[in-house]
């Protein structure tokens, strides 16, 4: 009788220990150390410019104020900028104000005779000093104030061209060539 009672107590005690051991195992869950992965995504700043065409011809009439270009050209400007930028500006310029176009024989058409109408605005001569090109040989076509809402943006400038020869009544006949450059600057 005593032995039987002792056996029962031993079984109960063992069961209790097993249950207790089970709870103890749960309380001791084993975690590894946290391994970090550094993430770095770089969206670089960019500003790009593309032109709808790269050549304009003019049939000149001597002494005439109106000598329009054969075609208009659209400059498409796109930008992706960091916060802190304040303006995107589009410029047209020549490398020399005295000889925007030349016949190669010493006869020149100055930048002051070359005019651009931007997006249907008034024709304006290239007589300003801009960040690019020669002194007094440029024109700022546009300036876009940059806010948080347009750190990524685009704009289009459709340019019409004219050569005003009213200040050049003695320009000799010939073929005059030159290069107009369009460029964008972000500050």
């Amino acid at each position, binding site marked *: 009788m005593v032995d039987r009672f002792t056996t029962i107590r031993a079984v109960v005690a063992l069961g209790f220990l097993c249950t207790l051991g089970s709870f103890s195992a749960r309380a001791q869950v084993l975690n590894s150390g946290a391994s970090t992965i550094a993430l770095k995504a770089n969206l670089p*700043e960019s*500003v*790009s*410019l*593309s*032109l709808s*065409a*790269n*050549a*304009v*011809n*003019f*049939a*000149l*009439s*001597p*002494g005439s104020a109106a*000598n329009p270009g054969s075609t208009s*050209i659209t*400059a498409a*400007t796109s930008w992706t*900028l960091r916060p*802190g*930028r*304040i303006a995107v500006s589009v410029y047209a310029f020549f490398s020399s104000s005295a000889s*925007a*176009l030349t*016949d190669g*024989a*010493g*006869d020149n*058409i100055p930048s002051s005779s*070359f005019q651009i109408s931007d997006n249907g605005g008034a024709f304006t001569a290239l007589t300003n000093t801009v*960040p*690019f090109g020669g002194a007094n040989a440029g024109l700022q076509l546009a300036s876009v104030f940059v806010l948080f809402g347009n750190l990524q943006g685009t704009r289009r400038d459709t340019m019409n*061209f004219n*050569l005003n020869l009213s200040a050049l*009544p*003695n*320009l*000799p*006949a*010939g*073929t*005059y*060539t*030159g*290069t*107009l*450059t*369009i*460029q*964008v*600057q*972000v*500050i």
Partner: protein
Amino acid sequence: MNHRNIAFLRIVSLAVLIVGTTSLASAQALNSGAQPIALNATLAESLTVNLSANAVNFTLAAGTAANPGSTNITATTAWVLKPGRTQVVVDAYFASAAAALTDGAGDNIPSSAFYISDNAGASAPLVNTVAFGAANAGLQLASVAIIAGNRNANRTDQMAFNINLTGGTLPQLPANTYTGTLNIQAQATP
């Protein structure tokens, strides 16, 4: 430190901040690529002569030196020339020296009997060989030296006409109607 000094320091600090920010932005300007547009402008050479009228009548008196035309005619010559041209001349001429005007029946008035006074100058007969027309049937009205300053220019020649019927057999010129064509033409050289 009173309020005035504090305000002053704030203004100075703000100015320094603005200047610093501006300098930093300038130093970090971002530029696009430069996109070229080729320009080609052609000013074509031209040389034109326009006349104020195209007909002159003469009432002839047999054997007389003075048979003036009914009207003066002004020739306006305009040119736009390339570098390298050195001269523009204006010529008057007939197609024949022997028969500047004719009655169509074998009776002719030679070019030597036809005179032009250019811009009120002395009258001169058309007896020279010029760039156009027949030999000994022309007169150079004008010659303009071309320099850098007049490659794009114009001139006017006011012509007064006369037929002198005193030379050779012309005093015996029969009565009739004599017609002819005087040409005015300009040439740029070389």
